[in-house]
């Protein structure tokens, strides 16, 4: 059963939500401010954080997501009113789920489950995207280095590529790193 951190730092009563989560068998931690939030995240490592849409601590959660990029936590936003557009934007945008006040307690557990699953999927997608972007970046560097070799050494394309590969193998470096060195050297030497 996921461990849930309920951040209670606005005037909206979260008591009902806590009761409903506990009734559903969740372990519920409650933090009442930024200080308690940081302590709870560090020491008790909740699986999900539930936060009011108007909580002043939301920026603290953003920073946690940035510095701890490999272990971010799904954030569920709690709102008193169901502005459909806001919910849709938030869901498209990093917030994993959206709970509206007055939601039947029985429906909470499945939402938490879906939030966790969805978060896993998003993290996976983000990692994939990072990989693809890195590959694209490497590709550009390699092409640039190849172009330099062809230009300055009069090599053919296949020959330039083979030279890069040979350097990479001899120096036990990645192809992109060899390319980066060649580009840097070319800039230095003009």
């Amino acid at each position, binding site marked *: 059963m996921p461990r849930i951190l309920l951040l209670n730092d606005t005037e909206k009563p979260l008591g009902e939500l806590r009761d409903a989560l506990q009734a559903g068998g969740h372990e519920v931690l409650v933090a009442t401010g*930024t200080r308690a939030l940081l302590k709870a995240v560090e020491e008790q490592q909740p699986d999900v954080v539930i936060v009011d849409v108007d909580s*002043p601590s939301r920026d603290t959660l*953003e920073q*946690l997501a*940035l*510095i701890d990029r490999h272990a971010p936590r799904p954030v569920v936003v709690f709102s008193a009113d169901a502005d459909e557009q*806001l919910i849709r*934007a938030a869901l498209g*945008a990093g917030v994993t789920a959206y709970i509206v006040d007055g939601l039947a307690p029985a429906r909470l557990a499945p939402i938490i489950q879906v939030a966790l699953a969805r978060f896993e999927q998003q993290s996976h997608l983000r990692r994939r995207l990072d990989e693809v972007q890195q590959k694209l970046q490497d590709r550009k560097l390699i092409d640039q280095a190849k172009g330099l070799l062809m230009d300055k050494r009069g090599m053919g394309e296949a020959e330039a590529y083979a030279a890069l590969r040979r350097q990479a193998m001899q120096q036990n470096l990645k192809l992109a790193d060899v390319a980066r060195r060649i580009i840097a050297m070319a800039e230095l030497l003009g």
Partner: protein
Amino acid sequence: MTLDKPRRRRVLHVGFVPLIDCAPLVAAVRLGLDGKHGLSLQLHRQASWAAVRDKLLSGELDAVHALAGLVYGVETGIGGPRGELAILMTLNQNGQAIVLSSGLARELERGRPLRELLSALPRMPVLAQTFPTGTHAMWLYCWLAAQGVDPLRDIHGLSMPPPQMPAAMAAGDLDGYCAGEPWSRQAEALGVGKRVVRSGQIWPGHPEKVLACRRQFAALEPETATALTAAVLEACRWLDQSPDHRRQAAQWLAHADIIGLPAGHLAACLLPPADEAPSTCLRFHADGQVNFPWISDGRWFLRQFRRWGWLAGADAVHDDALLAEVHRLASYRAAAQRIGVPLPVENSRSGPPLDDPQRE
């Protein structure tokens, strides 16, 4: 602009965070400048920058008072959602500060190097700013790095709502922070910390808060975007016209719906100090020098994001194409001409005097 023709004023919902530099938006409403330009601005106070961003992206808000860095953070999707935003104008320059706990500040003043002071602490130093990609994070990180402190490895950095910072410092949770006024003076008032540097000393004339909207809004409703820019630009000009105007603004900001602190306290933050160079102090207009959405300011933020490893690649052509979309120069120019604010010849200004090692 035809003022005599009766027509319904366009209502715009504008978000702000309760800080001194939301003054241009409040003044625009109080002076009736929104009505003058055919608009009716409804101001909505927000508790976090995350809420400002989400409500802007969702369409619940039409425009917002935002940290300049936040806009570029959303454009590049760092640490949060990606979205297409637009900067209509800069609202203010300078006016932020870095505070250290009293003990550290005292030693620093005696000339001991910051690096040495921080590494002598019994724990990893804890320093706060207001938003991961925000301006305060940038000023803090630049200041630390310039003194040989690596902001990503040598300190524990966190984001926190500024009203909680002085108390967190008093409780011993924070060794320092960077925030806007009135929150650095508050640490001094409580006797728990001391301002060691004003942001205007780090980069005189740095951009701070901007007036931002969705890109789609700026592109599809250019007339409304220009009218909004003109109304707020006029308010900025008014704020820089005389100290009396700033005193008046302090009264408005003191209102419980805006900041809700005593007017005298806010006036102390708003009024230009006599003994400091104006180019390093909080300013809202300076003949439009403050408000022009300089392309070079955007380049600087993107470079910093790369410097801290949040953004891959370095493609100047791509950056400039992006910034040409984000910075709404045409809309700003039209607004400035409408109310007679001088325009610069160039779209960029001379660079910030910060170290800027793009490649290590």
